[in-house]
């Protein structure tokens, strides 16, 4: 028998009220082969892979720990080179970058830990999407600023780990590296926008390109707008129109 066309299905099904009975009658059949027990719940609970939010929290904790360690190490380096501006200034630049990462990470961690699935749906979906926006923004900022940190990292790293003076390579060489770091940012964005959507690229490359090109952030903002539109969120108050 030829399945009915979609428009016929819609015509037949468009009366939502008439399909409530069909919907209700399916309950016993759907429930027949499923029964929860304590042992199964315990086993599922132990499976770490199922919970994406917990994975994100662990990821954020690790990132935060690494960045805090970085702030500490760079701060120590700076304290050891207070009288040497050629090392102190790059260390300060790196520390500002690392502190910004710590602040962004701490905020995301606080947001993630505040998610409670038993709260109203729109509230939680809005929080999750805002967290996603912050995460994407943070990753984008990290990627775009990283080339600027290359020369300070070289100077501080060479001195701190190996006792070497990167300035011995010559100011022109360092300046060329710094200029390259500045130029690579718009170049990376252009390449990501021009070649990012290509189907032949691996998924991780496409994801990276989408992030650098700003597409991921735009998608996340659009998704957040849909959620806020659903609840009739007021842009000025941040709460649903009409209140709850």
């Amino acid at each position, binding site marked *: 028998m030829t399945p009915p066309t979609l428009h016929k299905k819609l015509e037949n099904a468009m009366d*939502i009220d008439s399909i409530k009975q*069909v919907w209700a009658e399916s309950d016993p059949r759907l429930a027949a082969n499923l029964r929860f027990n304590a042992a199964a719940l315990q086993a599922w609970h132990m499976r770490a892979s199922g919970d994406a939010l917990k994975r994100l929290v662990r990821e954020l904790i690790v990132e935060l720990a690494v960045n805090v360690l970085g702030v500490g190490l760079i701060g120590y380096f700076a304290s050891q080179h207070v009288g040497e501006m050629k090392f102190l200034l790059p260390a300060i630049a790196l520390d500002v970058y690392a502190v910004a990462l710590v602040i962004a990470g701490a905020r995301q961690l606080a947001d993630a830990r505040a998610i409670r699935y038993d*709260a109203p*749906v729109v509230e939680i979906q809005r929080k999750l999407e805002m967290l996603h926006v912050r995460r994407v923004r943070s990753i984008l900022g990290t990627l775009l600023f990283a080339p600027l940190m290359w020369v300070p990292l070289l100077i501080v790293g060479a001195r701190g780990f190996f006792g070497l003076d990167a300035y011995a390579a010559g100011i022109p060489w360092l300046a060329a590296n710094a200029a390259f770091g500045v130029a690579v940012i718009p170049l990376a964005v252009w390449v990501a926008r021009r070649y990012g959507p290509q189907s032949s690229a691996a998924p991780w490359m496409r994801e990276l390109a989408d992030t650098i090109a700003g597409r991921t952030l735009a998608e996340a903002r659009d998704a957040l707008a849909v959620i806020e539109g659903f609840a009739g969120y007021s842009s000025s108050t941040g709460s649903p129109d009409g209140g709850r």
Partner: protein
Amino acid sequence: MNGNGPHDEFLDDLNRHRAMLVKIAAAYARTADREDLVQEIAVQAWRAYPRFERRSKFSTWLYRIAMNVAISYQRRDERTRRRVVTADEPALERIAGTSEETADERLAQIYELIEALDPLDRALVLLYLDDRPYAEIAAILGITETNAGTRIGRIKERLKRDAAHTA
């Protein structure tokens, strides 16, 4: 979990609502992932149970958890699929069950309708089909009753327009 008192009560309540979890999972997950989604919802409910103070009905509380977990699952899945699927690849498996997977073709048609809606509208329709009063729908979703009623009306109109367009 040791099966005493509150846990027995939780399991009894959860099992009374297992059809609800299956329906929600079927509305948001691909066939291969539905069982995992049902498990994830059940585990999240179990974890949240110590905080449940019975100020609302168990069904209201469980709907919130189920919808939040399912919608979050679907958003993550969509983001992943956008990176993996290209125009040259075969069309993705439909989220809705096929007539081979559901005994009732009408139920499959319902899922096909639901699939066309965005996640929050989908949640609204699922609650409406489950015959939840507007006050409970509003409490589960965190919107006003007026908003819930208006949105359901709009969805019905949209379905009628789509049917008229394709006829």
